[in-house]
């Protein structure tokens, strides 16, 4: 071979050493995503970091592992995964732990080409999951580093393959020759000798080009919305978060994760119209039975229209007022709810694109057919921002329905849904709050709120005492700490025990979602009103 300038070339053994180094780096880079993933995988991550680093420093170590143990790895991993899934019941965290376990094994065993590709796929999965779940800026840095490392790794794998005269047999026991005499310093010197600065520069320029092309593709890829979206969060969010649910089941939740992510942005043309404490109302839960608050079928049937409407505009019940119209533009993030937050009745609501929805005008609720897969934007005109929903016929309907039929939506707001012993307990508490007097609604609400605040502390780690009977009543009469759902549910039960129609309202607060009591009365105002939040 005649060459203008003879440069040294890495031997096959040195290429193997480089491959080992890059593979280990990829494993470490991938498992370190656990730092900002909120999964219980710290032990595995630590173990992987230590083991893979040790194998990187001393590549001869994997040869010390007896060959028969490799045959046990696959069954052991399967048992680990099934056990993990069974014990925790969390799909995505279990998959992440499985992924880390596989990376650990691949990081500390001599790899064939197939195993090298596995390392890349497993690592990419971890990084993408972390990116999707955290939406962190670190993701951008990490995926760039990962991509550079993975491309270099693939290049070396390819060079090894083309330089190999005889491919090593899979599962060949013993320490390979390249692992016996590995000196990282010597390899670094050799790589530096071999590298041509012009080639390295071109490689760097090409990588920058890749990033640029990625950015262009990212901008150029057409976007359109698909129905029935899939969210990784759905698999991950088994642990309850503060947020919206269309039913509340007491006794299930043992720990709630504070979710401070952005749920809703609102842009108002006239800022003076924004109430001091806006009540972003979404849904009401009027039916309580078996420890669960939900929207009753009867109310669903009567309040919501039978079929869905497919339109981009919703006509509300409010009528235009004089003066400059006020526009409320909502940017409702995905993954929150299919019920749209509103302040009250409105004149007109416009979506950015056509939507399938049901509008319950009496309840002031708009339900989309599916939970939006992306941020939903809508503009509301002529919205009533006060905390009162006028319902002039409420008192009349309540009186008419007071007779035998207890299934009407109005009377359902009086139904307690608890057994006789629990009813006795509730009545005892009501007597304690009211002192046996027939209090006005506002006064009753104030005293009940005070009573609950005195008796229970607020906590995201609620404790519902064990025992017989209704879980909500058990908590109510105890002194255990609780979260908003327990407070609101207790408030509703106490109000109903006092003979006041009430239901739980779901709303978005300034930072997060919490439950609110919606209490109705016809004694003084003649119309229902929202009394207060908890």
């Amino acid at each position, binding site marked *: 071979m005649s060459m203008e300038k003879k440069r040294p070339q890495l031997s096959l053994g040195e290429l193997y050493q480089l491959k080992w180094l890059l593979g280990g780096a990829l494993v470490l880079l991938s498992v370190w995503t656990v730092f900002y993933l909120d999964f219980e995988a710290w032990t595995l991550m630590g173990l992987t970091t230590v083991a893979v680093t040790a194998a990187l420093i001393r590549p001869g170590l994997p040869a010390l592992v007896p060959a028969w143990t490799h045959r046990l790895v696959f069954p052991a991993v399967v048992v680990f995964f099934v056990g993990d899934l069974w014990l925790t019941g969390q799909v995505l965290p279990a998959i992440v732990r499985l992924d880390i376990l596989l990376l650990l094994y691949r990081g500390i065993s001599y790899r064939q080409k197939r195993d090298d590709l596995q390392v890349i796929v497993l690592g990419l999965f971890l990084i993408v999951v972390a*990116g999707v779940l955290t939406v962190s800026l670190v993701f951008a840095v990490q995926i760039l580093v990962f991509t550079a490392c993975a491309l270099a790794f693939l*290049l070396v794998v390819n060079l090894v393959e083309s330089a190999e005269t005889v491919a090593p047999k899979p599962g060949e026991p013993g320490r390979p020759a390249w692992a016996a005499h590995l000196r990282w310093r010597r390899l670094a010197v050799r790589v530096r000798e071999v590298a041509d600065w012009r080639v390295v520069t071109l490689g760097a320029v090409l990588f920058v080009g890749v990033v640029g092309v990625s950015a262009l593709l990212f901008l150029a890829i057409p976007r359109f919305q698909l129905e029935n*979206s899939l969210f990784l969060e759905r698999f991950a969010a088994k642990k309850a978060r503060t947020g919206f649910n269309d039913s509340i089941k007491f006794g299930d939740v043992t720990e709630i994760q504070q979710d401070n992510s952005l749920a809703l942005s609102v842009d108002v043309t006239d800022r003076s119209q924004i109430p001091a404490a806006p009540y972003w109302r979404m849904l009401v839960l009027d039916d309580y039975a078996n420890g669960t608050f939900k929207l009753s079928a009867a109310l669903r049937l009567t309040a919501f229209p039978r079929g869905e409407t497919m339109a981009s505009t919703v006509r509300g019940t409010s009528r235009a007022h004089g003066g400059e119209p006020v526009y409320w533009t909502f940017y409702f993030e995905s993954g929150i709810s299919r019920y749209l937050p509103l302040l009250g009745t409105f004149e007109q609501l416009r979506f950015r694109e056509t939507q399938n929805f049901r509008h319950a005008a009496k309840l002031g609720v708009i339900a989309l057919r599916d939970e939006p897969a992306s941020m939903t934007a809508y503009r509301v005109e002529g919205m009533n921002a006060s905390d009162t929903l006028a319902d002039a016929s409420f008192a009349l309907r309540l009186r008419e329905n007071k007779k035998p039929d207890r299934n009407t939506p109005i009377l359902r707001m009086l139904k307690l849904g608890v057994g006789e012993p629990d009813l006795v307990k509730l009545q005892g508490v009501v007597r304690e709050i009211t002192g046996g007097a027939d209090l006005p609604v506002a006064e009753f609400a104030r005293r009940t709120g005070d009573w609950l605040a005195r008796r229970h502390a607020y906590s995201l780690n609620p404790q519902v005492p064990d025992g017989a009977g209704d879980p909500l009543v058990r908590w109510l009469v105890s002194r255990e700490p609780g979260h908003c759902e327990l407070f609101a549910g207790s408030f509703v039960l106490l109000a109903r025990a006092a003979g006041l129609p009430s239901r739980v309202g779901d709303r978005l607060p300034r930072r997060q979602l919490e439950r609110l009591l919606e209490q109705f009365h016809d004694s003084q105002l003649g119309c229902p009103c929202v009394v207060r939040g908890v």
Partner: protein
Amino acid sequence: MNAAPAALTAAASPPGNSLAAGWQGPGARGARRRFTWNRVLWALVFPQRGQRILPTLSGTLLIALSLGIGMAAYNSANNILFITLSLLLSCLILSGVLSWLNFRGVAWRLELAPPLRAGHEAVVGLGLRNRKAFLPTYGLWFELLARHVEDGPPPAPESTITGKGIDLKVEWAKAEQGETRGRLFLRERLDPRGETRLDWLFKPLRRGRLRVELSGIGSQFPFGFLKKLLTTELREELMVWPAPVEYRRLKEAAARRTAGGERTSRTGSGGDLLALRRYAEGDSHRLIHWKASARSRQLLVRQFAAESTEGFSLWLRTDAAVWTHPEQFELLVSFCATLAEDLFRAGQLIAAAIDDEPPVPIRRVNDLETLLDRLALVEPRKEAGPGTAVAATEPTKAKRNVLTFAPDGARGVAAYVDGEKTATA
């Protein structure tokens, strides 16, 4: 008897033949075209004729992964997934660009070293050259094909074959008979402005005209996602001489001397002056041509022509009626070629004739090569010629010391000199 001696082989390969093929490929001088971005971009999108790009297993995996991530991205409208999708697609584009750079500036040519002999290992050299300024080339492989070419006009295209897959497989297998395929790997880096040579060892299965082709060049560089294949039209034809065979001499055939002998154009110790040449150390002083030396002012010696006083003429008759078994006919040709070489080396081969053709004198190595080329292509003659009536075992009247051949049993071949059996194979 072994293969032809090295001296004969070396002498038989003219110096020009070893570098017969010209350079081809993107780096060949004629292949360079004016650089335009338009052409580059278009070549990236739409590969040129003869270029194929196929995904490998890892490439298929990457495409499947991209599709999965793309579906998830559209399904969830998640920008993180769109970023990942964009990166994966960019990596595919980068792979294509690097693969293009890897092939750029590379040229190749076949370096053949005839003669080849049936059943003996032959070497086909593949010269490689990288004309890039500073980028090396990695991981190429070359598909080589050696295929026997039938003499005569190409067969007319046959009608469409219909049948089941198994029949087609049989047809393909038939078509591939007589083909030898090989793959050469560029295992080391081909440096910028560097050259290298890869050798392919193969055994020609039978005598005849052989076409050696560089049927394709492939590479999975840089990431192994895509397999890029180029087809070439680089091919060379060369002759495969009959295989040398072992034979047994029954008696030392002493050629009968004729009075005076015949003059040959080879140098020897005959009486006729053949040529003058420069004096070399060791030459006898008696051979110096003084007059010519004086005229040319340098010492010149006389060269005399050799006299073929002990030579044989070789007559090969290929009648199909006589040589009914193909294997026996092949043995005949090989035996004939082997005897011709041995006699030439011993300086005893005067002339050779095949069937009714007039005898061709064999004086130089080129004459012997021509004879071996003829023997490489000879086939049994269907129509009986006028000389067929003469039995090989009968002594020929016209000439003496004529070597003829006849079947020896069902498989063997015997050589006769003037009707006397002298050797068998």
